[in-house]
């Protein structure tokens, strides 16, 4: 899981059975003490592999939306909730946005979810028993062993390996973050990649997508792009299809304060 704190925005991304939405009220409270008011919210998630394990309010998207609506000030009057479908029953994309005005920035966000990882690739995210390392040094070892550092060579990487397996990393490069979370256990292996970019950054996205797909070699990959000023979504299929990941679905929707969300799913032919 990861937290990013900018002067004017905060991003929290958590896996497991965390009650993420319970952070909204305390964050609004603490920000008010700094003279800051909430201007927009965006909540996104895929489908849980183990939905019955999720605690309230994450018991259903409906519960999450009601909880968010109750937590937000009335000033955030432009609101929308949507579940974007795909042709894969286990994959859909849940989006909720709210804002005080329809203000589209020029940043795009790309959120990648990968399942059924290649076994050899996933195997690199297990700690070796009594390796004599701590989370940081074992994390560094995993970063090197998987060439994750090559995704964005100019990023400073903060990585951590969990015991007995699992990995998280944050990359920071100027005002751009990237983050990876890996759950490598066979049967429900999962990895995510996320980064942001601005107008001039979209050209790099194809190279980044290829690197990510080559590191994890997933059987199923979903890519959600959220952008106001830039249609990065068009670069996704042309980057992934040469790697044997065929596009199975593409859904798009407009959100008042986030712009266009395009949700695409890809599977290998071996499916």
């Amino acid at each position, binding site marked *: 899981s990861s937290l990013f704190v900018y002067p004017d925005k905060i991003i929290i991304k958590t*896996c497991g059975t965390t009650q993420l939405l319970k952070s909204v009220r305390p964050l609004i409270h603490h920000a008010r003490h700094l*003279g800051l008011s909430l201007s927009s919210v965006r909540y996104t998630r895929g489908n849980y592999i183990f939905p019955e394990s999720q605690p309230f309010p994450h018991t259903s998207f409906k519960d999450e939306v009601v909880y968010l609506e109750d937590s937000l000030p009335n000033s955030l009057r432009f609101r929308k909730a949507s579940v974007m479908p795909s042709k894969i029953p286990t994959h859909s994309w849940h989006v909720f946005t709210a804002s005080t005005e329809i203000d589209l920035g020029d940043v795009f966000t790309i959120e990648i979810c990968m399942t059924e990882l290649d076994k050899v690739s996933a195997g690199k995210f297990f700690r070796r028993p009594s390796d004599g390392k701590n989370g940081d040094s074992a994390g560094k070892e995993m970063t090197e062993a998987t060439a994750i550092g090559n995704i964005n060579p100019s990023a400073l990487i903060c990585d951590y390996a969990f015991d007995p397996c699992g990995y998280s990393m*944050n990359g920071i490069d100027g005002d751009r973050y990237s983050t990876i979370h890996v759950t490598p256990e066979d049967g429900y292996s999962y990895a995510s990649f996320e980064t942001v970019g601005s107008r001039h950054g979209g050209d790099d996205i194809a190279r980044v997508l290829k690197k990510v797909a080559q590191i994890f070699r997933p059987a199923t990959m979903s890519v959600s792009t959220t952008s106001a000023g830039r249609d990065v979504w068009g670069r996704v299929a042309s980057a992934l299809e040469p790697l044997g990941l065929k596009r199975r679905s593409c859904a798009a929707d407009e959100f008042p304060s986030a712009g266009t969300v395009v949700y695409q799913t890809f599977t290998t032919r071996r499916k």
Partner: protein
Amino acid sequence: MAVSGFEGFEKRLELHFFGDDPTEMDLNNLGRGLGLRRLDFDSLQQVLHAVQCTVVSAVGNLYFDSYVLSE
């Protein structure tokens, strides 16, 4: 209850804030341009406690602070 493993799929929350006085939109007026970065670690830990997470690693630069969390 199906046998559960560790849930990989994440929940992601992004919140944007602005200064109360619109003239303070220039980040340099938000207390040396730090805005939310002036949240002290105790406040961040309070928020993370509500989310059942703790910080295991951190790094920041001129633009933002980043934390790796453990559930």
